[in-house]
């Protein structure tokens, strides 16, 4: 029971519930299952991206290029679809994942082989990838008329009452969960985040593990590239501009420690959901959408204050236990 109360996922879940209850008190329709499913669906892309970012942050790195990767892969797939509408969509999605993973691997190689700090690398590729969107598209848009019907409709179909887009999020979350908790790979992410030096002595290749984290975040960005473009039915240079920080925000709110080694799949998902619920609630309660940015900023600051205090007590408890044992 004590452990449940201390878990940050529980508190975050309660915070989300509190927002839901507060809004529902005034607008009962807000918490209707159909609207909740809509919120989940609206947040699906952010949830997937947050999971990719979490893998990177766990290894004491950061990937600021995710939104640009998404925009570039999205433009590639949209132009491919416009030019060759006969290519089946599953093949396009696979292509997206490969392109995204390739862009992520470029980040990863620079971090692994040249040992350049991740923030510098991804700051550079953030601008490079987005610039490349302009170069390949010539600044033109790809709009709904140029995309094939399948391309637009696939994620809008439903399976067992849930939109396909939501299923994408569920499957990605399940895969990342298994990866993080059941594989040596996932262990390694946490290990090098907690103590890189000790990890080296246990035989973990720190550089290679970081590389893999970047490939993972790139692959997820690529997948989301297709999903974003087909959801908003427009591919342009401006797609997801500035979104990289929203992704980091979701992670931070979800309790992923920027210092590495701390974070859970559930936390990252709830962090993203929190932002999704707040953004959905604002127009309902009649607050101008212009408040969104300030509120998410305040949420980040609040979350990081709470994170810091919970991480600190954790350290003390370990010390106390050691004292008792001694």
């Amino acid at each position, binding site marked *: 029971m004590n452990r449940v109360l201390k878990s940050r996922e529980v508190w975050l879940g309660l915070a989300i519930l509190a927002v839901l209850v507060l809004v529902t008190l005034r607008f009962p329709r807000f918490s209707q299952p159909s609207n909740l499913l809509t919120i989940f669906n609206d947040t699906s892309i952010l949830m997937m991206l947050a999971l990719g970012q979490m893998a990177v942050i766990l290894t004491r790195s*950061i990937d600021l290029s995710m939104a640009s990767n998404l925009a570039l892969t999205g433009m590639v797939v949209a132009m491919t679809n416009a030019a060759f509408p006969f290519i089946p969509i599953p093949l396009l999605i696979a292509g997206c994942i490969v392109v995204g993973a390739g862009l992520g691997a470029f980040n990863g190689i*620079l971090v692994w082989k*040249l*040992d*350049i*700090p991740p*923030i*510098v*690398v991804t*700051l*550079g*590729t*953030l*601008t*490079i990838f*987005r*610039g*490349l969107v*302009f*170069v390949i598209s010539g*600044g033109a848009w790809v709009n709904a008329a140029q995309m094939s019907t399948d391309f637009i409709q696939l994620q809008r179909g439903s399976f067992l009452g849930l939109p396909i887009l939501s299923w994408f999020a569920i499957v990605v979350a399940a895969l990342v969960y298994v990866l993080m908790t059941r594989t040596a790979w996932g262990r390694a992410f946490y290990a090098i985040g907690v103590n890189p030096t000790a990890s080296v002595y246990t035989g973990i290749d720190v550089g290679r593990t970081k590389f893999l984290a970047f490939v993972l975040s790139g692959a997820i960005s690529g997948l989301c590239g297709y999903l974003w473009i087909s959801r908003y039915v427009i591919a342009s*240079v401006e797609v997801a501009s*500035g979104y990289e*920080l929203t992704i*980091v*925000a979701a992670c*931070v709110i979800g309790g992923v420690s*920027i*210092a590495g080694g701390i974070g859970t799949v559930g936390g990252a998902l709830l962090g993203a959901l929190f932002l999704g619920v707040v953004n959905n609630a604002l127009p309902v309660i009649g607050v*101008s959408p*212009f*408040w*969104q*940015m*300030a*509120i*998410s*900023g*305040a949420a*980040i*600051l609040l979350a*990081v*204050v709470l994170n*810091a205090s919970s991480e600190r007590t954790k350290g003390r408890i370990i010390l106390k236990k050691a004292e008792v044992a001694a």
Partner: protein
Amino acid sequence: MTDATATGRHLPDRLDNPLKSAVVSWESLLVLVALGIFIGNSFASPYFLNAWSLSDLTFNFTEKGLIALAMALVIITGEIDLSVASIIALASTLMGLALQFGADTPTLVAVGVGVGILCGAFNGFLVTGLKLPSIVVTIGTMSLFRGIAFIILGDQSYKGYPKDFSWFGQGYVWWVVSFELVLFLVAAAIFYVLLHRTNFGRRVFAIGNNATAARFSGVRVDRIKFVLFCLTGLMSGIAAVLLTARLGSTRPSIAQGFELDVVTMVVLGGVSIMGGAGSILGVVLAALIIGLVTFGLGLLNVPGIVMTIFTGALLIVVIALPILFRMFRERRG
């Protein structure tokens, strides 16, 4: 020299010849890059070598450069401030708001600079008072500050700044020498003295190299970091005054993306993102290089978004080259 095992126990009798170390320094590499781009530009466009063109060029980097000077110190201590562009947005918005209440030029400047310092102090308090990681804090305040600007302004804009106010962004001190350029050079000189010639600067380096050791040797680490965040806020406030005066209007989206350009300048200038090393001269040269690149490409009608590819690539290549060079040398030796 780079690896303790490679040099063994051999200790050189004296340091490298100062002339030699000046020649092979990061700054001289930057000078070469700048010269290369300058010469390239003059061949690429007939309009480049012209006093007024060169004067216009400086507007490409003065505002960002002013912030980069303070950011360099923050990064040398191992922290970062990603909220600088949002400080500009908030300061500019509040200046616009003050204008609606009939503020005169000195009041406007005071509002801009004051808001900047307050925002910086807020960052500094969160980082040093509450011991939070600066990268997360400033990602948060980045949304918060610009978010407040959006709450105040929405999709509106403020216009109608007084004529004598626009002088800060559009005025010339002498012939083609703009007020912005003079201010940047004066600030660069002040920051040079501050970082390289005072105890304060020594302490900044000490914190970046080993904050714990610095604390034990009596350096007030938290106080210095707090001051540096205020200083960055101050420079962002000044940049807000200049930018608002130059554009003559305020929108909440003003200076969007500046933070990344500023960090690029600082890192390109040879400041280690891990802290502990860097020089003001390098930052000034990096600011000049970025100004040269973007202006030169502009003369060639290259769209702004494509220019960002060049600045991004420049950042990675300039950082990667010395590392590649060192790896190559170690493999041979």
